[in-house]
């Protein structure tokens, strides 16, 4: 995770040519669990992300404590019991757009993309591949993706008593509105 932070910081440091790097500090990641017993929804609007359009590299980091839930008790259980956010404060993704050449960054429009990379939650890292879209708009880029993850893959231990309340697969939604990283 420390390497990811350093890489992330390096990607966002101002270098000579920045026209290729896009950034957001209020990206959105939400997850949704649906079971007959209970619906659980967590929303994080403080995701920091960088997209390099020259290489297709995409990196983002999220604070676990920034995930907000409707009910305070649910948020407490999420942080203290499942995610142990004092021990593992951040979650991150490091990957790239695999079909970069199919996106025309100079032409406004919506482009289908595939993104592959490493997703780290707690101290577990798994390779994921997901489909999404990049929307080129005037002054920025919007990236959207939906994918599923299984809590067990990330060593999220769910006690048997509540196992039925949490879905086997959580639906994760990512929405990033990037703006160009400018020279300061």
């Amino acid at each position, binding site marked *: 995770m420390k390497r990811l932070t350093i890489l992330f*910081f390096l990607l966002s440091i101002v270098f000579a040519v920045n026209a290729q790097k896009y950034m957001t500090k209020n990206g959105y990641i939400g997850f949704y669990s649906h079971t007959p017993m209970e619906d659980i929804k967590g929303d994080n609007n*403080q995701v920091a992300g960088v997209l390099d359009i020259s290489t297709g590299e995409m990196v983002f980091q999220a604070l676990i404590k920034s995930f*907000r839930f409707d009910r305070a008790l649910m948020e407490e259980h999420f942080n203290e019991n499942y995610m142990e956010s004092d021990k593992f404060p951040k979650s991150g993704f490091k990957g790239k757009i695999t079909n970069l050449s199919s996106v025309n960054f100079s032409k406004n429009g919506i482009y289908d993309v595939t993104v592959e990379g490493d997703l780290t939650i707690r101290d577990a890292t798994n390779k994921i591949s997901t489909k999404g879209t990049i929307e080129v708009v005037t002054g920025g880029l919007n990236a959207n993706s939906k994918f599923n993850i299984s809590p067990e893959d990330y060593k999220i231990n769910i006690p048997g008593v509540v196992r039925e309340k949490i879905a086997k697969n959580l639906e994760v939604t990512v929405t990033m509105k990037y703006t160009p990283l400018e020279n300061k």
Partner: protein
Amino acid sequence: MKTYVKIALFFVSFIALSGILAALYMYNLKHTDMAKAEPDFVISALVLQKAFEDDETAASTRYINKILEVTGTIASVKPAENNILSISLVTGSDLSSVICTFPAIADPSKFMNGDQITLRGECSGFLLDVLLNNCAVIEDKK
């Protein structure tokens, strides 16, 4: 029914009911109302950001999960989906600031860059910026 049985039954029912009500209360509890909460620290955005920049570990121990009342100048206002608003405060650093994220707010347009503002929120931690959540604007300090 004998009197003592009635009394015992009453007592048991009362305790059971109290237990159920308490559990329901806890289950449905929403987040702390920041407008009414007592802050753990009253601090300027400049000082707060510098604390994390100088020693992230020490600042994390000191400020994370605490209620911070932060004063500063608005650097930027960013609305997001679902009536979420993020306000960035000016700090000593160009790259790193203090960001407060709000649940639904009445009128985001009343916050202008350059305005002085006092915000109260829970400190979630530090990515590139100090991040606060469940924020409320403290009106009488403006």
